[in-house]
């Protein structure tokens, strides 16, 4: 008859140990998910020929980077990147130097990325990404008429 002394609705109090287990499992889940999370990044450009350039009369150094249909990259007509070269190291090095030189002489560097009509967008993004890595912000994007 000892059971009668302990009624069935006796409150055992809040159990912390099972809660820690649950929290731990949930935390592990989010930790694993955190590694795979895809964050969207953006590359900022301006349209070619915007009004800002007409205000200052100093001529910026103009550089044209071409993206061909096959994925080849040219810097002022000189080839700098093969179609399979995704990191574009040589373009990055040259742009970095140019950026530093422009900063020292206090001129503005104006980069135009000129893609052929049928060039793949991914290639254009590779170039823009490379320019972002080299800290160059004044970039415009244009598509050349092949006609």
């Amino acid at each position, binding site marked *: 008859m000892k059971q009668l002394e302990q009624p069935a609705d006796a409150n055992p109090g809040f159990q912390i140990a099972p809660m820690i287990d649950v929290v731990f499992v949930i935390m592990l889940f989010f930790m694993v998910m955190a590694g795979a999370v895809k964050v969207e990044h953006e590359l900022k450009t301006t349209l070619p020929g915007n009004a800002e350039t007409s205000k200052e009369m100093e001529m910026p150094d103009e550089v044209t980077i071409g993206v061909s249909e096959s994925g080849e990259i040219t810097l002022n007509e000189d080839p700098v990147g093969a179609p399979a070269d995704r990191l574009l190291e040589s373009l990055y090095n040259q742009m970095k130097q140019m950026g530093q030189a422009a900063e020292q002489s206090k001129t503005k560097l104006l980069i135009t990325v000129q893609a052929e009509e049928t060039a*793949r967008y991914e290639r254009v993004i590779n170039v823009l990404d490379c320019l972002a890595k080299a800290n160059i912000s004044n970039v415009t994007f244009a598509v050349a008429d092949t006609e």
Partner: protein
Amino acid sequence: MIDVLLVLLIFFMSITSSQVLKVDKNISLPVAANGVKRDDKAAAGLINISWDKTTGVAKYKLDDRELDMNDKDGIAKELAARKGDNPKYRLLVRADKDCHAKYISKALEWGAEAGIENIAFSGLNHEE
């Protein structure tokens, strides 16, 4: 101990769910690891450009609504109305990586027509 666990839990929850990507499933974005993180504070018109590999034609969507490629004036008018007099309004171009450059320039043309000169291209921080 439980306090620390809860704090960690909240931390990991926030970094995983801070950006629920509203990405069109048909678009596979290119990788742009060096881009800056997207700031959602500035108002932006979002143009999704998906690419049909078999026909080689791009499809445009402004937010979730499909756009007619040939209706240049209509789109420009709509973008201009959205822009209002906000000089910081941006055009966020989110295009498939196989898309051809001339279709991208078309979207930029609409933006130019509407007087938007801030363009941002969107990419993922790492490969899937």
